[in-house]
């Protein structure tokens, strides 16, 4: 009955790529290619953000998946606002690093990672919604299913009290504590890193102005003036090279370290949400225990029934959660490693290119006859 043991082969996570993006007015459409793990035939589908949102909601509201509440759901990036209706500043505030980069490059990468993460997840990869997402010719988001009924972290006072509720398990208490602490630190680092990237972009623009102004110094009156004009043009080329370097460096920053920090922040939020769901269940369980103890004889049986069911749910959630957390820690380190290595290699390569270019300029200038 609606079991996940379908014979339909699952999508290979590594094969998922977002290959193209088109904009039509306010709507963005993503072209996604993928392969089933059993075949080498590629499939291409076109999806809008609504479809991604539908997918996430479907995953969240799956029935008959035991302990679903204990799953750390891969975080979906927020809804993209088309460039016609927002300013750069607003986009930065909302999306941070995902707002940077030409033509949604970074945002697409984040979406791609999301799909890969879902497809790689032991439980979620089996969902019918996922396979429908990758194969259905129709846009699945058009038929809105029911929304997830999960509690999201909100600022309601009652919710905040629950968040601080003391745990019965040392492992989970320590996870909750470190999660809060680390997520604050990561948020701060992300902001600071974003500041450095934005300043580098400002520097690139300033170099552009400087380089252009040098072109205006143009005079062919006499030999000395001609030489001076030549020197100014030479300097203009050099400053242009400085500008290009800044652009490359900040590009490298955004596409590796920036994306890594953004992903890490959002995944920590997802983990936090899962832990909160479990905590809520704990609160519910403790309430059920109290009710069961205090129940009048005529209600006792019912209350005990509720207590038993809640206990069972809680145990399931906790056991799923524990596995999820362990998987999370492994995956997280691996992802950060890959991004750090990629960032370092990119910056090293850019520095080597730029160094060679500046050295060439230096030799040319030294040989410049005045």
């Amino acid at each position, binding site marked *: 009955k609606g079991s996940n043991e379908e014979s339909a082969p699952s999508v290979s996570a590594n094969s998922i790529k977002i290959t193209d993006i088109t904009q039509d007015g306010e709507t963005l459409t993503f072209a996604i290619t993928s392969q089933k793990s059993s075949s080498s035939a590629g499939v291409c589908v076109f999806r809008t953000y609504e479809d991604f949102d539908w997918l996430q909601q479907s995953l969240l509201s799956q029935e008959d998946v035991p302990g679903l509440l204990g799953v750390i759901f891969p975080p979906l990036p927020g809804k993209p606002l088309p460039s016609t209706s927002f300013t750069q500043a607003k986009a930065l505030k909302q999306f941070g690093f995902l707002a940077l980069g030409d033509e949604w490059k970074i945002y697409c990468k984040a979406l791609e990672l999301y799909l890969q993460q879902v497809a790689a997840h032991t439980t979620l990869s089996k969902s019918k919604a996922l396979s429908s997402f990758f194969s259905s010719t129709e846009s699945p988001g058009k038929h809105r299913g029911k929304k997830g009924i999960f509690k999201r972290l909100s600022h309601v006072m009652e919710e905040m009290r629950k968040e601080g509720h003391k745990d019965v398990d040392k492992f989970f208490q320590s996870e909750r504590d470190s999660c809060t602490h680390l997520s604050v630190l990561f948020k701060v680092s992300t902001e600071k890193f974003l500041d450095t990237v934005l300043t580098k972009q400002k*520097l690139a623009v300033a170099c552009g102005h400087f380089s252009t*102004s040098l072109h205006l110094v143009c005079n062919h009156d006499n030999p*000395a003036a001609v030489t001076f004009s030549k020197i100014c043009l030479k300097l203009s080329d050099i400053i242009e090279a400085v500008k290009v370097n800044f652009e490359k460096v900040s590009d490298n920053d955004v596409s590796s370290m920036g994306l890594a920090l953004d992903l890490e922040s959002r995944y920590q939020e997802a983990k936090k949400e899962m832990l909160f769901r479990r905590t809520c269940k704990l609160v519910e369980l403790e309430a059920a225990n109290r009710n069961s103890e205090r129940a009048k004889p005529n209600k006792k049986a019912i209350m005990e029934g509720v207590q038993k069911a809640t206990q069972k749910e809680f145990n399931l959630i906790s056991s799923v959660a524990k596995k999820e957390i362990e998987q999370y820690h492994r995956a997280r380190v691996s992802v950060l*490693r890959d991004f*750090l290595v990629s960032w370092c290699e990119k910056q*090293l390569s850019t520095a080597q290119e730029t160094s060679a270019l500046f050295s060439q300029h*230096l030799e040319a200038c030294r040989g410049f006859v*005045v």
Partner: protein
Amino acid sequence: MLIKNCEPLVRAHIEAQVSLSAQTIACDGMNAYMAYKVTTKTSLNLFNRNEFTVKRRFSDFLGLHSKLASKYLHIGYIVPPAPEKSIVGMTKVKVGKEDLSSAEFVEKRRSALERYLMRTVNHPALLKDPDVIQFLESTELPRAVSTQALSGAGILRMVNKAAEAVNKMTIKMNESDAWFEEKQQQFENLDVQLRKLHASVESLVCHRKELSVNTASFAKSAAMLGNSEDHTALSRALSQLAEVEEKIDQLHQEQAYADFYLFSELLGDYVRLITAGVFDHRMKTWSKWQDAQVMLQRKREAEAKLQYANKPDKLQQAKEEIKEWEAKVQQGERDFEQISKNIRREVGRFEKQRVKDFKVVIIKYLESLVHTQQQLIKYWEAFLPEAKAIA
């Protein structure tokens, strides 16, 4: 730090080289002041020795400039402008706090004074001037009085007043020499261009300093991450990352200094050089010559009238006045030709020197850029194995 070391930024003739170092001097328990040791190395016979050092105060430099300006500006020499009292850039953008005791301020001033002296000594006529020789050589120098009006800004005000006065007279100079008309226009254009360039560079310096602050801030946050991270190898890598970023911050600061000391100051110097107003002085000289001619004409007319007036004393006086004014007219013409000749020569020298100055600065700048990239390569190469070691 790259360019704080002694190599002068203005290339001199082989004949004389000047370098400055700064030192604070406490004076009789009253206020301490800054003195500069001026060291000259020369092979010229004008000087008693080949290498010598004297101590000078900022006001001494202003005093020297005011003497040179009063002697040479009006005959068409491009006298190097006096060093600025304030270090606020021409765009009035405060690049950092103006702290008079800060190391940054001292270095900016020292560098400005050094460039000023080098430019002065570079000028073949000025090098031989007795005031310059005295300034470089003699142990004691009479204190310059009331330096308020003598500061760069003060001189500028004086010159501008003169220029305004000239403009108010609405001199319609019959420019027989197209060269001057063109050159004046070029200098005006150059002034506009240089100011624009200067503004660009100040913006660059400002952003680089901002980048340095942001990088340091990020480095701190990365260090905190490293401390809180449970996974050992990841924690280590994050701490290493923090160190790399700190080093990069240092590079940004050095590069900002290079931007500033090389370009910003050079461009500023040249703008001030151009606004010294030689062309205005030539106009004034021409105007004086024309006025003398007008006066001579009047005297001749007066004499002609007196021919029929039978006043022999007055006639004699009129004839003498004519002689006087004829001489003045001749002098006026000579002065005008002289200043025109001087300006042509000075402008030629200026244009040649400009190319040399810029070339020196560009090469130094490129050297600093190459150095920065090579340091970055070192840092990233060192970090890569740390990142790869995360298991």
